């Protein structure tokens, strides 16, 4: 009986976990494509000679970050969204940048940029504010 009860419990958890918890707030394919395009356009506009410039507070130096590829995953942050793009610095190191985006009319705009700050996103996910 204990084994059966365990099986039922695991199955229920799997079912709940597999469920589209964010299905109601999940953006449609159109929105996702628009978000990816808006992020791409934002990056294009911030490029300086093909790279974005980032002030490293720790070293006090300006880093050149070259865009590589976009992450397909879009996270939901309440009414907003979080998208990620991989960059590479001059030394060839990968630098992830998270873009926090909001709706603006029929388009989308970036309201916060977190350069190599995955801790912020992880904290928000741990707090349940950011979901898949």
């Amino acid at each position, binding site marked *: 009986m204990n*084994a*059966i009860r365990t*099986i*039922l419990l*695991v*199955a229920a958890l*799997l*079912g709940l*976990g*597999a*469920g*589209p918890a964010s299905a109601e707030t999940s953006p*449609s*394919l*159109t*929105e*996702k*494509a*628009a*978000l*990816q*395009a*808006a*992020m*791409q*356009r934002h990056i*294009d*506009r911030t490029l300086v000679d093909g790279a974005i410039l980032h002030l490293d507070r720790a070293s006090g130096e300006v880093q050149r970050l070259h865009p590589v590829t*976009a*992450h*397909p*995953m*879009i996270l939901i942050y309440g009414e907003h969204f979080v998208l990620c793009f991989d960059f590479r610095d001059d030394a060839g190191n990968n630098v992830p940048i998270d873009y926090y985006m909001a709706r603006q009319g*029929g*388009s989308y705009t970036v309201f916060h940029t977190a350069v190599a700050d995955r801790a912020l996103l992880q904290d928000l996910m741990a707090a349940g504010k950011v979901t*898949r």
Partner: protein
Amino acid sequence: MQDRNIPSRPPWPQRLHIRFLAIVSFAFLLIIVPCAWLIFSLMHQADDAMLTARVGNLSARAAGAIERHGAYVDPALAGDLMAPLAADRAFLCAELRNGTSVVAALPASQGCVAGQEGHYFEIPVDDKGTWILRAGFTDAELVKLRNLEMLLGLAAISVAFFAVLVAGGVSYRFLIWRPLNRLTDGILHSARSGSRSVIPWNSRDEMGLVVGAYNNLVLSETERERQLQDSVERIQASESALATLNQELEQRVQERTLELEIAKREADRANDSKTQFLWSMSHELRTPLNAILGFSEIMSRELFGRITPVRYKSFADDIHYSGQHLLKVINDLLDIARIEVGRETLVDEPTDIAALLAETLRVIAPLAHDGGVRLESRMDRNSMTLRIDPVKMRQILINLLGNAVKHTPADGTVSIEARIAPDGRVAFVVEDTGPGIPAEFLDQVMEPFGRAEGVSPHLQKGTGLGLPLARKMAELHGGELVLHSEVGVGTRVTVYLPANRQITDGHITDRHMADLPVGRTGTDA
């Protein structure tokens, strides 16, 4: 063994392997279905994300290229910059718009068709938002691919489910059903036939333990039955031997009984002959003895003149005394013989016991006086009258008192008491302070001529007939004689008479009291 006590196999739904497979199937589906759904859902999301990322990025890059090259005014250039979008099969169309007017399109001759099913989104091309790139795409291929994956997944799940059923069924059959079936068959066979047999199964799993435990039980039960059978056989053999022994014993008993009956008849015949001989001889002896006593008494009393020499008178006295002694012996023998042959009968009459005791003590008093023995008599009531033969009762008491006086040394005491025993019988108790009789001689002195030889000279006085004769006379009255003696203390002889021989009790007469030579509380004889 009754079949109704043997349980039959359960119906299919209740059989163990059906339940086992049902549980396995349920557990499998319970786990695999949510897992598969989870996997498909994640794959779906990932595919959507990949598609939208690809479409979004391509569109944005096209928009960026149009902006950088200022292709707003050059539709051909704008079309060329949008052309790479067609390389992606997900794209349906793209249009560079300024307000509602389309400057460039993809496909160039058509652009986006109104009402075409798909997903459409717009990307601002310039900073002011005057120029818009509108793109349309479809996930039809994803849906097809997803359906195919779903189909393959279901097929895989079905195959896996079937494999699980087969594996579960085969495992159950080899691991559980076979040993369980053998165990069940063995138990049913034992129940039907009553014989137990070991089940051949040597696995080391739990079923092997169960079958091994059953085999151990069978072996122990078989050993116990064998021991029981051996015990039964031994008991039967013992019973048979015992029966044979009993038959032999019964035969021996019958033989011995027959021999004893013959011996008893011979002994009775010999005893009768002896008694008859004693009776005849005693009778024959008394006739000449009377003549001897009479003539010796005449001579002893010198009725016909003095006898000279004087020594002859002494001889005559001895002859007379010896004759009297011989006469007493003969009379005693004659009485015993009469009682043994049943010729002695009682002449019962009411007898005053106080008078009887007084008369008896008068007879014994001279003998006691000569021996320096003090006589005492007691009664526990004033008077007592019994229906007895007074002659024989007097002889009993004289014999007992005479024995007591003879065996009591000087300054000793001999007492006689008549009383009612606690059980209602009448008891005559004669006690002395003599040397006593050892316990091993008590039975012997109760037999005729049975004296305690070699013990004490005191115990060898007399003929050895007084006590046996007293006992026989007491038994003739329906009573008994009990002898109790303790060496160094004295002897007590009690004659019990049946209670129904009492007639009256009351005050003893003055005449009887006056006749007593000794006080009721005891005086010297």
